[in-house]
Structure formats: C-alpha cells, structure tokens
C-alpha cells in the first residue's frame, strides 16, 4: 500500500516536471500583457488569442510556418527518394562492403550538421540559391537522409523477405514485388519515421538561420525576432513551435516507441 502510494507520488512528480514548462508557455502565450506584467497576478483572470494572432498575421509567423513546412516536405521527399533504394539494398542484398557502408552512414549521424551552414552559404551564393527554401531543404536533407536510410532499413528488415520472394515467384518483378507486397506492410512505419524526420527539420534552427534572410523558417524567424520582440510574442512563438511537434508525437507515439525499440507489452 505504501509502496503503491510512493510509486504514484513519484509518477506525479515526474509528470509535473515534464509537463509544467509546456503548460506554462501555452498559458503565457494566452495571458493578456497587462496581467503578464502584473507581479501580483500569478494566474491570469482572462485569456486572449491576440498574441498568437499578431504573431501569425503581422509578425510574419504564418509565412514562416509555411516556409518550414515546405522545407521539411522537400527534405523528406529527397530523403526517401534517395534513401529507400539504399535501405532496400542494405536489407535485401548480401555483398562485399555492406557493413562498411552501413557504418559510414551511421557515422555521418555523429557529424555536427550545424557546421555545414557556413560553407554552404558561400556555395549557394555562387550557384544562386542563397536565401531560398530549397537551399535550407538541401542542408536539412544531409541531416535527415542518413536517419531515413538507417530507420527504413530496420523497418524493411522487419518484414520477412519471403513475402517479397513469394511475390517474385508468383509473377512480379523485383521492383513490383517491393511496391505491391512489402510497401503496404512497411508504410505505417515509414510514415512514422517521415513524421519524425519532419520534426527534425521543423526544429532545426542554426543552419536555417544562417542560410536565410528573407525566407526564414519558423525557428529561424523566431531566433531573429525574439531578441527584439516583447516577451508575450516570445511565448506565442514558443507555443506554435511546440504544438505541432507535440501533436505529431501524440498520434505516432506507438510507432515511435517501436522505432526506438521500446516494447509496450
């Protein structure tokens, strides 16, 4: 009984520790400015959507959000287009040097991707894609692509090769068999990893801030605007950064857990 109560108490403390900052920033973003600056008022008497609205409408937040979505979309697209064949070969073929290739791709994950921003800027100026969303997307792809290769190869590897071989025996080519037999089976897992890839790009701030001036993604926009904006806009910005990511996590939590190798049974 005591043990049970203690467990519950610890669980509540942990939940409190992780949830409080999230609850507070959402609350702050909804607090009227007068009440925020009133030191004697801890909880606001009324809530307002004004900060969020002006961040979106007058401070360019909406455009930055669309930019972020485009950047993430392009890098996910390229990553899967380039990454799936490699992931397929890693799981379905046996060949010399396979482990070295896998290790090399794994090692790029330990590469500090943020440093590529500076040299890429000079390159982009030369080839005329500086301050474009495509430029940011390509930079983000170098971070997302190795992730997609590794995670997809583990997802595809989780589907027995015999399903695909059965497809080939019963009349499909290798490619058709992958698309029509294996693809439907791996699609949920790939979708979950695409969502995670989306969050990687959505959250990346350093490279995006360096590569763009006019076409800023949301975090890059916030990074620059936050320095000068009043506090309540910062909270509104923090909230719109956090909410989509949290919604994604919520809807894909089961798949994400299995991607991380956590069993829920």
């Amino acid at each position, binding site marked *: 009984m005591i043990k049970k109560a203690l467990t519950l108490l610890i669980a509540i403390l942990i939940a409190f520790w992780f949830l409080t900052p999230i609850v507070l920033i959402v609350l702050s973003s909804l607090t009227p400015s007068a009440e925020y600056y009133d030191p004697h008022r801890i909880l606001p008497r009324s809530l307002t959507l004004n900060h969020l609205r002006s961040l979106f409408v007058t401070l360019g937040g909406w455009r930055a959000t669309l930019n972020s979505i485009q950047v993430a979309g392009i890098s996910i697209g390229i990553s899967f287009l380039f990454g799936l064949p490699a992931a397929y070969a890693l799981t379905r073929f046996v060949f010399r040097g396979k482990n070295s290739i896998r290790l090399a791709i794994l090692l790029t994950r330990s590469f500090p991707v943020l440093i590529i921003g500076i040299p890429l800027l000079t390159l982009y100026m030369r080839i005329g894609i500086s301050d474009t969303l495509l430029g940011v997307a390509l930079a983000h792809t170098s971070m997302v692509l190795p992730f997609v290769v590794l995670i997809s190869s583990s997802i595809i590897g989780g589907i027995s090769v015999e399903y695909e071989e059965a497809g080939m025996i019963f009349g499909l080519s290798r490619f058709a068999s992958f698309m029509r037999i294996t693809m439907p089976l791996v699609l949920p897992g790939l979708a979950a990893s695409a969502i995670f890839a989306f969050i990687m790009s959505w959250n990346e701030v350093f490279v995006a*801030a360096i590569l763009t001036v006019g076409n800023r993604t949301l975090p890059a926009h916030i990074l620059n605007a936050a320095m000068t904006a009043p506090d309540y806009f910062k909270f509104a910005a923090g909230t719109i950064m956090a909410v989509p990511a949290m919604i994604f996590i919520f809807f894909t939590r089961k798949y994400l857990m299995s991607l991380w190798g956590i069993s829920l049974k």
Partner: protein
Amino acid sequence: MTYKKGITPYLYFIPVIAFLIMFLGYPLIETFRLAFTHPTEPLGNFLRVTRTGEMWKALRYTLMISAIVVPAQLVFALALALFINMRFKGYLFLLYIISIPLALSDVSAALMSYSIFSPSGYVNKILMNLGMADSPIYFFGRGFETRAFWVIVITEIWRATPLVFVILLAGLQSVNKEYLEAADIFGFSRWTKLRKIILPILKPAILSALLIRTLFAFQIFGVAWLLTGRDIPILAGEAYYWQSIRYNSNVAASYGLVIALISIIISWIYLIVLRSREVEGARA
C-alpha cells in the same frame, strides 16, 4: 536475402553517397579552407579570437555545460528508465509524457524556460506573492551570468533527458528477465542486482546514449543563444555571431572547425572503447 556480386548493389547507394559527399563532405573541406584563409597568416582567424580570449571562453562554457548536463541526464534518465520499467499501472501514460520533450526544439525549450525565469516570469511571480522577494530576481543579463548558466543547464537537462531515457529503456527491456529471477533466487539485493547484472548488460546502451548526448552537447546553440545571447558564449553561438552579425565566414568557420574536431575526437574515443570491449568479449 539475395546474394549479389558485381556492381548492382552499389548502384543503390549512389544517390545517398553522392548527396552526402556534396552536402557533408564538401562543406567539411570548405570549412577547413575558410578557417585557414586569412590575408596575412594561416592561423589568423583563430588568433583573432584566441588573443581576445573569446574562443577560450566559449570553449570553457561549452565544456562546462557538457560536463554537467551529460552526466546529470544519464543519472536522471537511468532512474526514470528503471522506474518506468517497473510497469506499474498507468506507466504507459507517464512514458508518453516523458517522451514529449523529444519532439520539442531547443528554441521552444528556451522560450519555455524564459516564461518561467523572466523578470515577470512564474518564479518571480510566485516569490513576490509569497513575500520572499520584493523586486524581481534577474536570471539573465550582464552581471547575472552564473544564474543564466544554471538556467541553461536546467533547460538542457529538461529537454534532452528523454532522449537518453528512450535509449536506456530500450536497453533495459532487452535484459532477460531470467537473469533477474536467477539473481532473486540467489538472494541478491536490489543494489547488487543493479550493479552486477543490469548495468553491465546496459553498458552498450549507456555508451551509445553517452556518445549521442556528448556530441549534441557540444553543438548546444538555441537554448544558450536565445536566453543569454553572448553573455554565456558557446561555440555554436559564436559561429552564428561571426557569420550572421559580423559577416565574417572565416572566423565563423574556425568555430565550426573546433566543433567538428571535438565531434571527431569524441566519436574516435567511442570507437576505441567499443573495440576494446569487443576484444574483452573475444577473450572471455
């Protein structure tokens, strides 16, 4: 599995490898070039920021933050993972709550911290309402560097503990229950079980979590930059400052190079540790 010889399997990797050479390999070389390009002396860019002590300061702060944050995350995450792995009623719900910060960016984490520690933030509101402070306590700005430092540390611990946690929990779940049952039969205490059975089996997971976290700790940017600007200088923040505010790509690249070199050294140490573990395994 199909055995393939000849060039066919390698064709599947051409897009990936070409892309990574273009967008990781080339920038890395270019970073070297930029860092060592200076009108008068090759090391000029470095000297410019080492003579003033800026780079040493940024390096020192980055190291200090890493040295506190990484071990704290590890201990905290291990405790969380052990707790969740007890599988009490409702543990799944808590598991999801813990995993929320995984999706949050450093930018939103910084702003969350700011809502708590700003002059009109919740900490000050509560203290002033309780009469424990007459005027706001400042956590940020000139002269408050120590406080700002600890806010950064707490924020980083809050934000990135879940990443370590999921790696450790996955590792913990792979511990064969029969080992623990055997330990129970032989009357091991909880502490002995943890030290003699769980931790050794968990070692690979701990090592990889350590590697990932250390690498990312040296790339800390958003939290420190948004909360303190250059009051608490860190390596990535200085790179950003020199690039975006001073428009000097060469000095910025020098900072980038320092981060890259540290990452390479850490990965290298990790590979050595891993290899020596393999040798141990081969002997046993």
